[in-house]
């Protein structure tokens, strides 16, 4: 599903690489926790995966396609199969919850009816049905976080990338968010979560990849839990 071969990333003007010779293979339907201290390169790695940045060296392969070789059109198409939850949400504060989520479907050319139907369904799943027509600006941080997740999930992505999805939430809200991600994972989505929240590292069938100064410091395969044994307790 996702392959990285000797991937390096040096930002222009930076004195050390943000990523340095990263080799990583992520299979279909894996649940990956990308751990590491601040500045370790977690966000950079995610940005490479949804084509917001180009690798300086090495190759990034997503669903069999070398991302460096995509045309603008193919890149846009690739992004439609990836759901991203950004560290800063990237929601439009003036638009309603519905319009924000609808955007992800509109770019795919779905009819208005389909768009609304799927948006309402996903809003129900994240527990925000009562906020459908509220502007984003009127929502709490935790609610905005869930809208961001809803927008990522509404496209039923093959890959879900989350950058600090529990960053500014209390333990209870963080657990709710993790449950949403786990639900998506159970449905077959490959999930990659970047976090420095140690509480997320334990439990469940999740593989922890730790970055340190742009290098993979340690890669622990998912606990050998059987598939039927779905103990996805977050904390």
């Amino acid at each position: 599903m996702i392959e990285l071969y000797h991937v390096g990333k040096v930002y222009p003007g930076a004195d050390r690489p943000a990523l340095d010779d990263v080799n990583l293979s992520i299979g279909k339907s894996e649940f990956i926790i990308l751990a590491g201290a601040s500045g370790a390169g977690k966000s950079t790695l995610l940005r490479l995966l949804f084509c917001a940045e180009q690798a300086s060296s090495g190759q990034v392969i997503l669903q069999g396609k070398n991302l460096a070789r995509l045309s603008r059109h193919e890149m846009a198409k690739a992004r439609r199969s990836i759901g991203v939850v950004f560290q800063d949400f990237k929601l439009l504060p003036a638009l309603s919850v519905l319009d924000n989520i609808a955007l992800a479907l509109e770019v795919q050319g779905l009819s208005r009816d389909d768009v609304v139907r799927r948006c309402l369904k996903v809003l129900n799943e994240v527990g925000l049905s009562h906020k459908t027509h509220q502007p984003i600006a009127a929502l709490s941080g935790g609610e905005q976080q869930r809208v961001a997740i809803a927008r990522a999930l509404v496209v039923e992505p093959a890959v879900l990338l989350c950058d600090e999805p529990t960053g500014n939430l209390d333990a209870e809200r963080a657990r709710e968010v993790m449950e949403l991600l786990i639900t998506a994972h159970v449905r077959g989505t490959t999930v990659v979560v970047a976090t420095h929240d140690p509480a997320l590292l334990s439990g469940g069938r999740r593989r922890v990849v730790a970055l340190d100064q742009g290098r993979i410091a340690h890669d622990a395969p998912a606990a050998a839990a059987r598939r039927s044994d779905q103990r996805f307790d977050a904390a």
Partner: protein
Amino acid sequence: MIGALSASVVKHGWRSVRSGGLPFFFAVLMTALGMFSLTAFGTVLWNFRALARAVGESVAAVAFLKVDDAAAAEETRARIQLTPGVESATLMTPEEALQRARRGLSGSAALQASAGLTMPWVVEVVPRFSLEDGESARLELVQRIGALDGVDEVLHPGGELKRIDALLRLLHGAGLFLAVLIVLVVVVVVSNAVRLTVLVRKDEIAIQKLVGASDAFVALPLLLSGVVQGTLGAVIALVTSGIAHASLARVVRVALSGALGTFTLDPLPWWILACVIVGGALLGAVGALLSVARFLRTSS
């Protein structure tokens, strides 16, 4: 799929229009102003051409023949009639020609002097008139008739034609200059308005791209807002010039009629008006395209 896409293009285009703010209205206003001056100038030119055609067709050349009898005169007339560029050729006997000449002379002294005057057979030639051919074509025709057998000399009052010709040329030149100027102004103003719209919607567009919007999905609403600006400007221009025409036409008719017969200020034909609207839309699209293309080049 296409239907749904165009629905979102319209929806996001409307958002672009709404977020256009003051620059949007400024662009519409400038487009309207430019298009108004163009239609006003066009109306003047259009009517002047009609006037020039009327004058041009009324100016005849006179061919003096060197023939002795009516049969030879008629034969020469027929040959003149067949010359390309001749609308009509009318034969006058020497007597008729003399009467015509006398009528043209005023004052008894001149009349007395013409007592011993004799006239040859004369053919009055009305050239086929075309504004585009103008002065030089007319001179060529005169020379061609002069070279025919049986024709002695051709008199042609070219003065007025020359003046009309020069004036038309001047008006056409000025019109072209005005048109180029207005095209540039409209394109620049719309392009700036769209660029500001892009700035206002920067975050939204960035997010659209992150969730996989194609270039077309980003560009089309912006193009649409440019087209709306251009079209709106053109429509406003046409409505205003319609009102201006209605209130000015009578004044002009009263002021100019008499000297030149009845003169009416005709409105432009519908197809030119249609061209103004299409032109406004096109200019808006071009202006928007300039900004959007630059924006897409610099964004990933």
